[in-house]
Every structure is written in C-alpha cells, then in structure tokens.
C-alpha cells in the first residue's frame, strides 16, 4: 500500500471498530508495485492520520527492538495531541510509510526523536483547534480539548456543542506544511506542553506488542512468506580469507527441489524450494577453497599480547588536564593495572534472516533491520536500482542490540531474489551467526593512578587500545559481508575508535591516550567489528571503574564514599546536570542496597582468595568456607542517562563460580515516559551486562572463529538469575519539577557499569582482582 491507500483502506478497515489496532506492523504487501517515495517530513500528514471514528495513527520512523519505544511514542504523542491513549496506534520503521528518522541506534528514540514527534502532535492539536474555532464560531481561547473532543469552555448554555477530531478531519488530509532542516528539527508553530500536563506520561500502559508475542499471533520477519518463495542458505569460507577456486554444482543437483547455486567472488549460496533441502544443500555442496598465505588474525589466547605489541592504525589525540607528570612525581602512592576485554559477539537468539520479493520490477525486503532506511539506501546502491524502487518493511525480530545495523541477510536475500527473479528467504545457521556476525571490539587497557597522603586521587592516566580497525557494522553497500565477499573494498577503511570512559569525577590531573590496532586481515573477516550495545561502554567502564575501586582499596576508603568525594570535589556541572545526577544515583543506590560503608576487601588484610590458593597477599584459604560473599559498585553514564549499580555476589572458592545474588540499579534518564516498561528494560539490560561479565568471549584459532554455538560462546542462563533486582528510578535534576524536564535514552547505559560492579564485588569477597573478561576460573 502507498500512504494514500493506507489512509483510505485503514479508514475502511476501522469502520465499526471503536479502537484501532495499537500497532500495525509489517505485513505481506505484494500488491503495491511502487514506486515508494519517501514520505515528506515537512507534511503533517506524513506523521499523523486521524480517522472519522476519532482514532489516530502515528507514523514513526524508528524501530522498536522490544523495549517499548512504540508504546512510549503513543504515550507522548497522545498527550500532545490530546487524544485518549487507547484510541491510538502506531506504524514504525517501514521506508515507504514512515518518515526516515534513521531507525534505531544510540538509544535515541525518545531522547532525540521524541521531540519532533511531540511537536508534530502538538501542531495537529493546534490545527484542529483552529478548525473547531471556525466551525463553532468561537475563539480558540474559549475552546478546550479532552480525549479528542473539542468543546467550548465557560459555556454553560447548551447548543453550541462539541466536535471530535474525527468530525473535523476524519479521513481527510491536514495539508499543513511544517518547518525544519531535518527530521530532528521538524516542527509546527504549536508549543509543547509542560510535562506536568502530560496525562499518559509517567503511567505504565502495557506494551502493545506483547500479547501477540505470547499467543503466537504476531508475524515476525522470520515468518514472512510470499507466493513462489524459495529458501536460500549461505555457504561460508571454511577459514577466514579463503578464496573460492571452484564449485561442484553436481554435488547438490540431485537434492529434491534444488533451484540454483548463486555465487560471485567468495560469496556462495544455495537455493531450494524447501527449507530443509536448502540446509542439506548448503552442507553437501562441494567447494574448493584456497587458504590465505598468511594467518588472518592471532589466536584468541594470544590476542592481548598481539594487541599490546601491534603498531596502531590510528592514535587518538591525547587529552590532558592539569600537569599529569608532575602530579605522578609528587604522589604519595602510584599504582598501575591492566585490564583485558575480549571480542564479544552480538550472538542474537535468532540468526540473521530476511525475505526479499522482486516482483513488479521492484524490491521489497521484509526484515527486522533496526536501521531499515539504511538498508533501503544500501540495497538500492548494491543492486543499482533506483531508491524509490526499493522498500524495506520493518517487522519484529530477535534482537542482537546492534547486529542488524549491518543487516547482511537483507542484502543477501535481495541479491539472490534479483538473480533468480523469485521471492527468497535467507536464513543464517547458528554456527554462521555466532562465527560471522559483527563483534564488539576487544580492548586492552593500562591504568595508572596517583594518590596523595590523604588518599585523594591526584592523577589518573587512562590508556586504551582497541582492536576496532575497519569498523564495518553498518548497512553500507560496500561493506556488508556479501559485498566484501564479492571483492568490494571500501577505501579508505574506517579507522574505528578507542573510547573514553564516562564519569564526572573531579580529578585534577588527568591524561587519556587511545589507539586502534588492526588485525592482519581487515576484510572478509569473521572478526568484523560493529556496534554492540553501547559500542564500547561495557569495556571501557570495566577498566575505569575497576581501577577506581583499586584506588579506593589503596586509599583504604569505602568505594561509595571514595566516588562521592571525587564527584563533590567540584561544583562544575554540564547543561544536563550530569554531576548532580551522578551523585543522586549513587546515593539512591546505596540507600536501597543498604550499603555497608567500609573499605574492601571484606576480610581486610586477610583476603579469602580461591581455595586453590590464588589469593594475593597470602590469605588463609583453609580456615574459610567455600562460599564467600562481597559487595561492589560501579557507575556510568551514556549521553545524559546516569546509572549506578550495586551488587552482592557469592563466590564459590572451589569452583570459581560467581553468582550475583542481588543487584540494585539506580537509573536517571530524566522524564520517565513508562516506568514499568523502563524497569524491565533496565533489569534485562543489567543482566545482559552480567552475561558479558561472566560468560561471553569469541574464541578463534589462527584461521577461523571457533565460537560457533551456545556451548562455545556461552551466555547467561536461568541459573545465573539474581534472587532480587531493584531498579530505583531517580530524578536528580536540581530542579526536578522543571516543565521542560528532558527525556533521555534508556536502552544501553545500564549494561556499562555491570562488569566492574561484579568485578569489584568479587574482589570484596575474595581479594582477587578480575583483570580479564569474562570472569571464568581460567581468567582469574
């Protein structure tokens, strides 16, 4: 359907039904032959449709990764429009139906796009009030709106009546032109409401996508079928960097329903009528591959030695405040520490997939791509098709938290569909996904800190080295995996980055040095880096907040008091009051946790260690129980969202098993739209950080990734679930009731501090410092 048809047909569909479907997700749409021009972001009609039955649909150019952003958009937009929440629905992330707001990324849905969405809804309300004013013959100042019905105020006489939005505009276009340079700045002339007047904000309507997910009725991108559709499976090089020499097509010709081998360069796929036969053909296809002359990467065992010795491909400009060298020279105590974080995979629960339909000389891709617009643009360039002949219909999918920013399967499905002229479904295998998905970059850190005689931090040197050269985790026609395998080489390659930690500590003398090192093989590699949830936050915050804990130990200070001292050492703050909100979060977490103020480790100068004697400073392993407990904290921010975490761990000194028994998360993301949905996102995201702390590592030998499934790339399981998680919602703004209290993103910050919080608690329990992620016994 194009938009006009959508308005028409959804109007018809809705007749007789008082409440529209809250979410109109993607569906098979084979009839509309295109073209598919972008909806005009400067037309109010591109954002909001109101029907005769007084229901409204919002068109949002974002995707909901299962964190409730669609429901939240309905809340803020129904408030600004002044229509009942349950009379609204939303359409998200399909390139021909919704304005290009970039899809998802950076947890910016509410933080950035929430504002234009509020403004267009407010503008629609303003326009409707003007229409009612003309219709009723009374000035706008004498009109009031409640739940989509405009009535005259201070008018006790009857007869003037009231008008619903549906009466005024139902099924018709607004034809109102907006202003703004881009989708972030789109606006009308109406003003936003003070947050105190937003009725749905702060309430917790249930997420509209959940019922269909628990009764099996929702159609996901993996479920899409089209008439004549065939199934494709990829055949990957057996070792990284291998070159395809030949394919023996006869090896699969006998498979029932065999359609074709599609191949170009080192990209190979098999196509069959039935899925199980495509799987069989992919296993059975005989290909001759030539191994590369040199190893594509070091082994995972040697990774950090390699990284520390490698020549950087880029070096960040050093950042320095104060006089660091002088401060170290005069410090009473100086300590140093190294920390290592390996490559960790996105490893989505559902491997990459997409369905592409080439009928009508266009290309429609049904996908869970979080950045559907990027895929539309990328596929158009990849297939050399006009952009308005390509559309991407976003649907629910398994999350990989950044994985689908480089949606390989969508490009592959589109390529094969164009080659064979039939709708094609591509599904990656588990082994393929775990080995070949995009990876979060490995980091090697060196920290150096100086304390004065009173135990204050006077100098800090943060040095980070990231294996992030050629960061290729995007929907670019020249860098998605199929394109690399076909021989495309983007030039110049992306330099990648090594990131800085996030804190508001007032440390007078501070230096940060960063560099990126390349692995030997930059293209066609299964160690291709992409944006893994908060791309580098969990890594860099593990180093910073572990080291801050080490400094607190050296200063014989309580870790909470030690951090608060550094946060309160300066009165300077940023425009979002992040320093004040950092203090508020740490205090709120400590109160909820019942923090016992004392230095770590718990056993003072006689740490427990592990029962194999791996305790620094001796200890007395034999006299202690097998299970020891401790508590730890860490804190972080991302953009303006601040999180403090405190956890209690049990460590089994015999087995090395770490169980996080309890976690408190104090979370300040400004104005909270839907508290219950937020709490669940924070709980799950915190456990995601825990999974990266305890289990996750991509392993590889010198020619291939050997982490290929859930045994070889373990993840958090039910058995790891804490007994209790408390999420404390904090509003640490110095003026908490400000009418323009900002709403910030909440999808990623919570997983940044978890690794350090757990590591610090393990130290408190055992006296053993976690220097290498994940915290399995071999790394301790």
């Amino acid at each position, binding site marked *: 359907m194009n938009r006009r048809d959508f308005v028409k047909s959804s109007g018809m569909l809705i007749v007789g039904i008082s409440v529209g479907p809250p979410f109109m997700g993607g569906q098979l749409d084979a009839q509309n032959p295109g073209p598919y021009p972008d909806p005009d972001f400067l037309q109010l009609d591109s954002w909001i449709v109101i029907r005769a039955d007084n229901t409204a649909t919002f068109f949002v150019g974002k995707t909901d990764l*299962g964190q409730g952003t669609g429901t939240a958009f309905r809340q803020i937009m129904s408030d600004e429009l002044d229509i009942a929440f349950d009379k609204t629905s939303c359409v998200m992330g399909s390139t021909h139906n919704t304005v290009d707001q970039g899809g998802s990324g950076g947890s910016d849905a509410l933080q950035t796009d929430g504002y234009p969405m509020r403004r267009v809804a407010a503008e629609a309300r303003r326009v409707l009030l003007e229409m009612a004013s003309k219709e009723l013959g009374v000035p706008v100042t004498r009109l009031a709106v409640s739940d989509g019905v405009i009535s005259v105020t201070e008018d006790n006489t009857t007869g003037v009546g009231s008008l619903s939005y549906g009466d005024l505009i139902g099924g018709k276009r607004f034809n109102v032109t907006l202003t703004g340079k881009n989708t972030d700045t789109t606006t009308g002339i109406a003003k936003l409401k003070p947050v105190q007047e937003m009725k749905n904000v702060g309430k917790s309507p249930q997420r509209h996508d959940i019922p269909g997910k628990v*009764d099996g009725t929702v159609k*996901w991108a993996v479920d899409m079928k089209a008439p004549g559709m065939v199934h494709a499976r990829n055949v990957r090089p057996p070792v990284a960097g291998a070159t395809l020499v030949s394919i023996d097509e006869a090896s699969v010709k006998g498979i029932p329903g065999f359609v074709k081998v599609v191949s170009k360069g080192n990209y190979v796929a098999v196509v069959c009528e039935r899925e199980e036969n495509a799987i069989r053909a992919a296993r059975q296809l005989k290909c001759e591959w030539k191994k590369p002359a040199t190893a594509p990467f070091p082994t995972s065992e040697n990774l950090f030695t390699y990284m520390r010795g490698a020549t950087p491909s880029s070096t960040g400009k050093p950042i320095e405040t104060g006089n660091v060298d002088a401060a170290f020279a005069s410090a009473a105590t100086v300590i140093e520490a190294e920390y290592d974080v390996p490559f960790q995979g996105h490893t989505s629960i559902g*491997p990459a997939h997409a369905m592409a339909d080439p009928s009508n000389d266009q290309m429609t891709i049904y996908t869970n791509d979080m950045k559907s617009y990027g895929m539309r643009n990328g596929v158009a360039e990849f297939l050399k098709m006009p952009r308005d002949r390509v559309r991407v219909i976003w649907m629910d*999918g398994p999350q990989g938290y950044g994985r689908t920013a480089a949606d390989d399967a969508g490009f592959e499905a589109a390529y094969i569909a164009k080659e064979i002229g039939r709708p094609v479904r591509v599904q990656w295998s588990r082994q393929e996904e775990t080995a070949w998905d995009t990876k979060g970059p490995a980091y090697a850190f060196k920290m150096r800190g100086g304390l004065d005689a009173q135990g204050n931090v006077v100098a800090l040197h943060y040095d980070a080295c990231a294996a992030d050269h050629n960061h290729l985790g995007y929907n670019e026609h020249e860098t998605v995996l199929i394109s690399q395998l076909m021989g495309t080489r983007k030039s110049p390659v992306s330099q990648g980055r090594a990131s800085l930690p996030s804190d508001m500590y007032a440390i007078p003398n501070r230096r940060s040095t960063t560099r990126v090192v390349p692995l030997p093989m930059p293209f066609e590699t299964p160690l291709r880096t992409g944006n893994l949830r908060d791309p580098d936050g969990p890594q860099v915050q593990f180093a910073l907040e572990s080291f801050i804990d080490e400094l607190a130990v050296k200063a014989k200070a309580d870790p909470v008091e030690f951090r608060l001292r550094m946060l309160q050492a300066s009165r300077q703050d940023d425009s979002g009051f992040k320093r004040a909100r950092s203090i508020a979060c740490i205090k709120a977490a400590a109160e909820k946790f019942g923090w016992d103020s004392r230095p770590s480790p718990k056993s003072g100068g006689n740490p427990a260690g592990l029962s194999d004697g791996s305790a620094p400073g001796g200890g007395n392993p034999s006299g202690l129980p097998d299970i020891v407990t401790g508590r730890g904290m860490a804190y972080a921010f991302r953009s303006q969202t601040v999180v403090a975490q405190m956890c209690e761990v049990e460590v089994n000194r015999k087995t090395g098993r770490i169980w996080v028994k309890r976690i408190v998360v104090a979370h300040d993301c400004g104005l909270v739209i839907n508290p219950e949905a937020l709490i669940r996102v924070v709980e799950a995201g915190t*456990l*995601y950080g825990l999974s990266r702390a305890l289990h996750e590592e991509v392993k590889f030998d010198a020619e291939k990734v050997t982490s290929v499934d*859930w045994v070889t790339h373990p*993840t958090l399981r039910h058995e790891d679930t804490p007994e209790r998680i408390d999420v404390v919602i904090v509003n640490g703004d110095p003026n908490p009731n400000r009418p323009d209290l900002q709403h910030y993103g909440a999808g990623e910050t919570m997983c940044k501090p978890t690794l350090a919080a757990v590591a610090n608690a393990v130290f408190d329990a055992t006296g053993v410092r976690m220097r290498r992620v994940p915290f399995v016994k071999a790394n301790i």
Partner: protein
Amino acid sequence: MANITLRVNGKAHTVDVEPSTPLLYVLRNDLDLSGPKFGCGLGQCGACTVLIKGEAVRSCIRPVSQVAGQEITTLEGLAQNGKLHPLQQAWIDEQVPQCGFCQNGQILTAKALLDKTPNPTDAQIREGMNGTLCRCMTYYRINAAIKRAATVMA
C-alpha cells in the same frame, strides 16, 4: 518423500515430506504454525520448543517421522476456547518479553515444568528452565511470571 500424519493442536494434518525433516520446518512452512522459532537447529536454545505428550521437545532436532500420530501442542494451541493459558496471561501481566523471540520456548518449557511441579521454588524454576536461553535476559521476569501463573493455577 512420504505421507506423514501429524496431530497438532487437536487437528490432523497429512504432509508429504522427507521423513528425516525436522518437525520445526514442517510446522512453520507446511502448517503455518510460526509460534516455534528457529534459534540454533542444535537443540541448544529452546526457541523451537513444542509440547509432545506433556514434554517440552526441541522441534529443530526431532525428525517428523518420529512424532507421527502423537499429539503436538504449539504456542498457538495453548489458549483454550479463546482464553489465554494462565502462563500466557502471566507473561502479559508481568510484561515479560523484551524482543520476545525466545518466549515461545520459555512459555512452553514453563508449561511442562508446572505440569510436573505445580508450585516450583526459585531453584526448581532455575533448574527446569535452564536450557531455554534468552539473549535479552528476561530471566528475572520469567521467574516472576511462572510463580504468578502457579498461584493462579493452584
């Protein structure tokens, strides 16, 4: 190829497929039952779970020929007479899912657990559910939802 009759959610279906075909592909592609999901094809994650004779079974590694004639329940068949199963309702009440892709397996594995252990402790839930993976890490709410459903069903 062979004609195989399956009983799924109370209905009989005859399909003409290779006997070794994993049940998952027949359910999804031939019977249009898309509740069970492909997650690994190795029996490691549980996304493909269905119930067969009350047991949670990994349909991605179960040849279709082995389940001919047996009563199979998928997520679509859990509600009775238009009323959600208490577990499904608890999943909504607790707002369990994030992305939701694994929840088919979580709900059906929980069903098999509660059928055997109607009032499970935290430890029994952790053990009974341990092989069913969630990459959004909704485990804490799954635990709460199972206990909520157990209370309702008691």
